[in-house]
């Protein structure tokens, strides 16, 4: 690819050769540009792709060679930073973790992949949503260690078992897949949502923490855990495999029995 690309005004330059084994797929993207659009619109792109490609690669192909204005977030590109959550064929996933081969149609039918921004948060542009309401809910549950008394000079002691107790909820990458898959969150945006509760759980069940009561009070609020209808969408959506619904249930139980 060292050859100089022929370019003309307005074109995206030459496209790379289509690799062996590539298939043509249609990527249908829900787009919105606040400069021009009153309403979101759908754009479809027919592009060559390998079955081993990830949805993130398809988006990159479009951005680099077809439409340089396509806007989405991505960072580490392998499922750790949690930047590229989107609705892929109707379910919340990280684009860097979905392989094309798992979306391909059987037989001769051309595959269409539908990509939309995650639901329940304001869309800024294309697949990019305003994450502020999501982080506001995260901050509201006091997502930090609360302790009283003097700081120790070395580490606090924590047994292996105590540390295991909240291991699952420390895996959260704040991608919002869970919160924006929740039907309650879609209709009642004031609900804290699963991710905030997961992050509260991470501290409520941390043996070093002394702020459980304050946090439980917050979660007992009208917009707290009682809004959860146990639909398990959040657990299905979590790219980290966190048992989100279970964590919410544990918080509910802690509230009912006033015991952590």
């Amino acid at each position, binding site marked *: 690819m060292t050859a*100089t690309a022929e*370019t003309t005004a307005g074109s995206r330059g030459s496209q790379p050769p289509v690799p062996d084994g590539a298939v043509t797929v249609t990527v249908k993207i829900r787009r919105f540009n606040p*400069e021009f659009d009153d309403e979101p619109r759908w754009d479809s792109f027919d592009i060559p792709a390998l079955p081993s490609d990830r949805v993130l690669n398809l988006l990159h192909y479009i951005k680099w*060679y077809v439409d340089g204005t396509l*806007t989405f977030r991505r960072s*580490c590109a*392998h499922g*750790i930073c949690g930047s590229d959550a989107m609705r892929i064929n109707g379910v919340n996933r990280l684009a860097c973790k979905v392989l094309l081969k798992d979306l391909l149609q059987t037989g001769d039918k051309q595959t269409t992949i539908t990509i939309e921004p995650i639901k329940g948060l304001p869309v800024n542009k294309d697949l990019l949503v305003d994450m502020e309401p999501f982080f506001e809910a995260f901050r509201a549950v006091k997502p930090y260690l609360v302790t009283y008394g003097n700081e120790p000079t070395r580490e606090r002691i924590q047994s*292996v078992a105590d540390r295991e107790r909240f291991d699952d909820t420390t895996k959260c990458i704040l991608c919002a897949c869970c919160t924006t898959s929740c039907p309650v969150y879609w209709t009642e945006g004031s609900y804290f949502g699963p991710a905030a509760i997961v992050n509260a759980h991470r501290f409520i069940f941390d043996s070093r923490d002394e702020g459980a009561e304050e946090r439980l009070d917050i979660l007992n609020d009208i917009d707290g855990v009682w809004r959860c209808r146990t639909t398990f969408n959040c657990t299905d959506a979590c790219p980290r495999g966190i048992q989100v619904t279970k964590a919410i249930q544990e918080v509910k139980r802690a509230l009912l029995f006033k015991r952590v």
Partner: protein
Amino acid sequence: MPELERHSFDVLVIGAGGAGLRAAIEAREHGMRTAVLCKSLFGKAHTVMAEGGIAAAMGNVNSSDSWQVHFRDTMRGGKFLNNWRMAELHAQEAPQRVWELETYGALFDRTKDGRISQRNFGGHEYPRLAHVGDRTGLELIRTLQQKIVSLQQEDFKEFGNYEERLRVFQEFTVTDLVKDGDRIAGAFGYWRESGRFVLFEAPAVILATGGIGKSFKVTSNSWEYTGDGHALALRAGASLINMEFIQFHPTGMVWPPSVKGILVTESVRGDGGVLRNSDGKRFMFDYIPEVFKDKYADNEEEGDRWYTDQANNRRPPELLPRDEVARAINSEVKAGRGSPHGGVFLDVSTRLPAEEIRKRLPSMHHQFKELADVDITAQPMEVGPTCHYVMGGVEVDPDTGSSSVAGLYAAGEVSGGMHGSNRLGGNSLSDLLVFGRRAGAGAAEYVRALDQRPAVSEDTVTEARATALKPFQQEGGENPYTLHMELQQSMNDLVGIIRRQAEMEEALQRLEKLKERAQSLTVEGHQQFNPGWHLALDLRNMLLVSECVAKAALLRTESRGGHTRDDHPSMDAEWRRKLLVCNVDENGVSVEEKPQIPIRSDLLDLFDRAELEKYLTAEELS
């Protein structure tokens, strides 16, 4: 022209990875009104990808460990080119920083008696890495993010404003630093979302922008790593050192193309994985250097026995230092014995039962299954070297992180010196905390001692705005993505893992042409969240920093750590005494030699003389 958004702070921190957040916390704790500016969302920094752990001689697992041993290991890892004062401070303060992180609330794996557990890692004499499974970097960032949330809630209680003393500006790009005479006066940049320009007036700026890996085609680095801080520092008049030293990790994924460069952990080899070429041969036996012959097995049988009996056998050559393995893989591929996609085979499937592989290497099993559709319990992986870390960066004062420009500070990967010519695994997370804190304190002291705050002239602002808008002023220019790919290909092929004079000269010629073409980039659309425009601006930084790398690499006629010259294959003690310093002025990038400050004698006394003879000149030893 829309009105310019303006803010005034005491300390600006550019970058929100481990170093940036730790620096911001420190500056704020010193009473400074502090702002953090970062390109991504808050909490998504590249630091989250660090897996291994944080190196700190706490001695929780082996009480023989001490800062002196850690210091020795770090200097050996860097082939003695390290700034010894930084290595000393780092080894001394890393334990405090880990304990402090724990009191902030970080999760750590624990020992049986409930203390922070520590694991073995390459180059560290004792188990030294504090860790949380394989997600230590993620936990580090999350903890610092949580700490900042708690400080902001404290401020709300005290002042009724969450952002009174610490404010984060996320998805924001800094395009230029601004100065008042010789001093830093602030920074100019834009909101990535709206494209609107913002001027920050601040007497002190801390660069914590990370590395430069996105200038290379195959890299484990994420999109933010475009050398912004390196380039901002250069343009503001600061110097970079050690830019020729780049760490290539031997095993990155090479297939499918979608995941090329993503890291394959060293543990695969540690647990029995072997490297094979297209003939099925375990080629590493052909690449054991003379100096390592007594420590590495010369036949497969002995190498295989080592996994169960380390006392009576030598270790297999797959476990040679990273630079040796990376070079060997490179040679096999060049000799036509590579895998179908230009790497070699890393096979654990014929070495361990499937059950055992899933148990010992869960994340790798997961990674290959999910991203490459390869079942590593049944198939070999294809791997090749990947650009991983830049040892070079802003030349700083070890104690305060101050650069040569008044008011400009740097910490973490964007600073240079700490790791010498090669960084040990685990030493980067500790580096971020130790020197992030020091830079935060250094900047705060500087601001406190100022009589008069610097002022920003309107001319400076007009110029910065014009520079940033240039890609919109042109028609008929090139697609920035095309240019970026050509830059990555050139750096990968010509200034990559193995370097030759003629190739680096060619690289410099290509860079000249790319620089010309970059003058006429064209971007579509408008300023509002325009990814093409962002890349066009990032390219300016990547081209400048790449030129530093190529020029410094061409000058250093020896091989040391992350700099391997095919035409000068050995290490030269005379070169250890010299640093290559990059500067930029109206004539472009210049590189000059500068003598190293001799190592303090009490630190030299920590080593055996026989060992020092490998690195130091006779004159230094006399």
